[in-house]
């Protein structure tokens, strides 16, 4: 045993070092976020509450009933029913997501060829009833409207629509051409189709959103 080791042992240097560290830590700022009072910033790409993208042109969801999301879902929480109207034209009769079964993997969002589906950055939607967390197609659209109302920009883009690491040329055409979705009512789109949205002054809504829409995909392509 060297002299230094002896000194360390007698004067408990290691313990004193540890105590110095804990004392220093006590004076540092706690990292705690007091959850209900203050919320941490949710970054883009957070996979939360499910929503259907409301199409700016039709004012409805964009689902083409390809069944890809139903088939890929690992927890099998999506169920879809195709119906036929009087002209024998297919329409989305039912689209249900049982969010209590969902594992938030985001596969449905990645696989959707028309980018109709999105896992929004909304995370606080716990409830006392199961019904409130069982989303049918109307609720999915409502989720979208509620989510978009909180957003600050004019367009919305979800990074899982064009997943990283997948060659863009292998994606379907509709996915390749998908532009960030305009989320503010434009003059082309009647404001009454978007509930909960009151445009401040339609005159101010010029073609600015559209201009931005064109800018965004180019940026995206560079990244991909």
């Amino acid at each position, binding site marked *: 045993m060297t002299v230094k080791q002896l000194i360390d042992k007698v004067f408990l240097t290691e*313990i004193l070092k*540890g*105590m110095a*560290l*804990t*004392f220093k*830590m*006590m*004076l*540092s*700022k*706690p*990292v*705690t976020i*007091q959850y209900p009072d203050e919320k941490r910033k949710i970054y883009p790409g957070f996979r939360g509450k499910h929503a259907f993208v409301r199409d700016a042109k039709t004012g409805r969801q964009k689902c083409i009933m390809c069944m890809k999301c139903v088939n890929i879902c690992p927890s099998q929480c999506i169920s879809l029913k195709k119906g036929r109207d009087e002209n024998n034209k297919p329409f989305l009769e039912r689209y249900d997501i049982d969010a209590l079964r969902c594992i938030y993997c985001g596969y449905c969002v990645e696989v959707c060829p028309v980018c109709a589906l999105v896992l929004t950055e909304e995370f606080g939607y716990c409830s006392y009833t199961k019904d409130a967390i069982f989303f049918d197609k109307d609720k999915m659209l409502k989720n979208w409207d509620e989510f978009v109302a909180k957003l600050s920009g004019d367009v919305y883009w979800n990074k899982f629509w064009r997943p990283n690491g997948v060659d863009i040329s292998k994606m379907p055409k509709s996915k390749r051409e998908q532009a960030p979705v305009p989320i503010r009512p434009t003059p082309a789109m009647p404001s009454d189709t978007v509930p909960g949205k009151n445009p401040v002054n339609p005159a101010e809504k010029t073609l600015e959103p559209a201009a931005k829409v064109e800018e965004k995909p180019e940026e995206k392509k560079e990244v991909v």
Partner: protein
Amino acid sequence: MDISSFYGSLGTDTTDFILRMIIMVAKIAVVIVIALLHVAYSTWFERKIIGHMQIRLGPMRVGYHGLLQPFADFVKLFFKEDIIPSSGDRPVFQLAPMIALFATISSLAVIPFFDDFVIAKNMNVGLLYLFAMSSLSAYGIILAGWSSNSKYAFLGGLRSSAQVISYEIALALSLVGIMVLSGSLNLVEIIEAQQKHWYGMYVVVQFPAYILFLICAFAETNRTPFDLPEAESELVAGYFVEYSGMRFSLFFMAEYIAMIIMSCIAVTCFWGGWTLPPVVMKALPFLAVVPGLVWFLLKVYCHLFLFYWVRATVPRFRYDHLMSLGWKVLIPLALANIVITSIVKFLF
């Protein structure tokens, strides 16, 4: 207590005796209530300190910065179901927490909180009484472990008995140096003896004994790093694993009061109790305005902080390390301290 004057007052003047008894009971009530409030807030203090040391916040929700948390905890424990194991030893199970709490609370009787405020005045075996009471509280723990009829509780009780016996010796021996220097076991006289020196605190001349005392105090109160009787990762909760509700909180209070008592002993024997060193008083005479209780409590709080600080830093000892530390290191060191102190006292 002065026995002859006690009986003398009983015979000659009954009203005087009754009056004194009332004052005594009032004093005891004040001390116990204040001690229990200290227990409540030392839990809050501990959670805050350890929280901040782990870069957390500690209790924040009940009251301003969680200040009402102790009362919320009390209400919770009070209304919890009192469960007694069906295969346990019922009367002993009920008695054990009371023994633990009684033994620790009765230690408060000889602690001089400030000038002339001691419940048992002129107790000439003050320190011995404190040792006796802290050993007695181990009975509560051992009986709790035995009567629970659970392997975890039993192991906790066994560990506690071995630990308390080993460290009791070193604890008492580490204070013998103080007894030699002050020539008394009476805590008030120990403080007065410290005031005769310019430094006014025995920690200056008895620093090794102070460190020994602190280590033994940690072991004696079952605090980390010597919390083997309640080692959560091995024994679930140790000796009180079967206790719930108020009975559990009695053990809890006993542990915290024991911690406060140990801090009080350290303050009284090593840090001059409610006094400040004469050299400080001479340099800053205006400090005489501050009541002695403030200094006493400040010193006690510093020791409590040390308890929490060590808990937040040091991991638990292994059992054989604990035993070898106690018998092979602390007791020889304490004996050496006694010898050296006696020689120095004899020479000067």
